């Protein structure tokens, strides 16, 4: 496999993360870390009606995990909860646009896991699918 993880747009999201920070009064806040590498990620969601009106994330980690979080935040802002609940790993991979080796999948999907955890805390359970992340 060629080394094409670090495309320009991925480095751009890593160095200039979108929606970075915290919300004053989030509807839900969820966080998680990857115990193996110490990456940390927290997501704040403001849910108004059936829409995610605002998203902020904060974390530290590798370019893959931080770019994926930044991209995910752009994907979900303004979307309906119903739509976001159904987001899966394939959607993240498509957005990243790179092949992820098995050792780095945890980096790529950390933000998705935190998002689903947050939604579950807000009472929006992700329906069971084949690609549910094992907790």
């Amino acid at each position, binding site marked *: *496999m*060629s*080394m094409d*993880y*670090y495309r320009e747009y991925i*480095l751009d999201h890593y*160095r200039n993360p979108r929606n970075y920070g915290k919300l004053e009064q989030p509807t839900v806040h969820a966080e998680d870390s990857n115990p*193996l*590498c*110490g*990456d*940390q990620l927290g997501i704040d969601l403001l849910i108004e009606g059936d829409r995610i009106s605002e998203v902020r994330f904060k974390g*530290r*980690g*590798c*370019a*893959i995990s*931080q770019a994926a979080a930044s991209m995910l935040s752009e994907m979900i802002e303004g979307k309906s909860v119903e739509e976001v609940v159904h987001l899966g790993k394939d959607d993240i991979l498509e957005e990243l646009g790179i092949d992820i*080796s098995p050792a*780095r999948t945890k*980096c790529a999907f950390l933000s998705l896991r935190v998002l689903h955890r947050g939604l579950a805390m807000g009472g929006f359970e992700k329906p069971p699918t084949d690609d549910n992340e094992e907790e």
Partner: protein
Amino acid sequence: MLTSDKVDDTGTTVRTAADIRNDFPIMSRTVHGKPLVFLDSAASSQKPRAVIDTMNVYYETYNANVHRGVYEISEEATAAMEKARVKVARFVNARQGKQIIFTRNTSEGINLVAYTWGNANIKAGDLIILTEMEHHSNLVPWQLLAQRTGARLEFVPVTDDGLLRLDIYEQLLQQQPKLVAFTHVSNVLGTINPAQALIAQAHAVGATVLLDAAQSVPHLAVDVQALDVDFLCFSGHKMLGPTGIGVLYGKRELLEAMPPFMGGGDMIRTVSLRQSTWNDLPWKFEAGTPAIAEAIGLGAAVDYLTALGMQNVVRHEQELTGYALQQLQEIPGLTIYGPPAALRGGVISFTLGDIHPHDLASILDQEVGVAVRAGHHCAQPLMERFGLAATARASFYVYTIKEDIDILVQGLHKAMHIFQL
């Protein structure tokens, strides 16, 4: 060092790393189409053919359980395993083979001491002194012991240069600790701690000392009698031996007074339905069928290191580490953690610009075939101390050559290019 057929002052022929490398079958493989450059020996070392063959010979010609059979191959297996124990004892200069307890790894040795000696000797309010540079395996067992007993934990801080604050250690010793446990060589910073002096100071106030030697026994000539250490733990797989075998060394009177750790076969003398009596050392602490092939393999690893001469291993690693520090320091934006070359073993942790260490390790792997560790190295409190989430770490051993470091440096330049630094 890199010239061949030299003889050192002990009469040992000094082999070059390039020659030694030929003994390691894995060194001929490629990764991502490039020759493997293995710079993660502090995590686990590679194995020479002598170790692999020794284990195969056991499985192919005298595989049997030990300490039970009266038939020939079981007697051979028992003799080979006990011979390995004696080899290990000589390697660390233990007085007797029975002071060498085979464990699975360093962690198990430390847990064994924490549960048996710890439960019997540590009471509520007792002080245990550790350091900020401990691997989780020399931290968590003592946290668990403190939770069980109500003991207190205090920590010797680390300076910006990665050295222990000896002044604070001396202050803490005034509080009459029961136990002092510390690492001989830091797996992150490479710091070689002045173990002999620290142990003597601890003994002067009546404390028992456990030394985590996971990173020292593979790389230094460790003499348990000269150190006068009470307990010492290390792992086979970091010293050219197999996984699944480690060693706990202990002073005989301590080991004899300790209750057993795990119960089961082999560790008993007599068993009735409601009680049992214990076997002699070392078997009192070796319940169940041991890792026989691995113990014999560790014996072969010890033979291999002894033939190289630990003084030559030390000299080789010092030279490489000095070279690597020099090369790495020339890379703009690269930060090295830990002490100067004279005070460290062959371990170098670093960060490069704003490149996360995981990304760095990915690039090194894929672009130049270099294997380095990235992460917190199972030493999260130490990383916190330096305000870091992670570092990349290159570590060296007997088969590492200067060209490996040159390729690492090339890879770091590639990473800077990819990250537009």
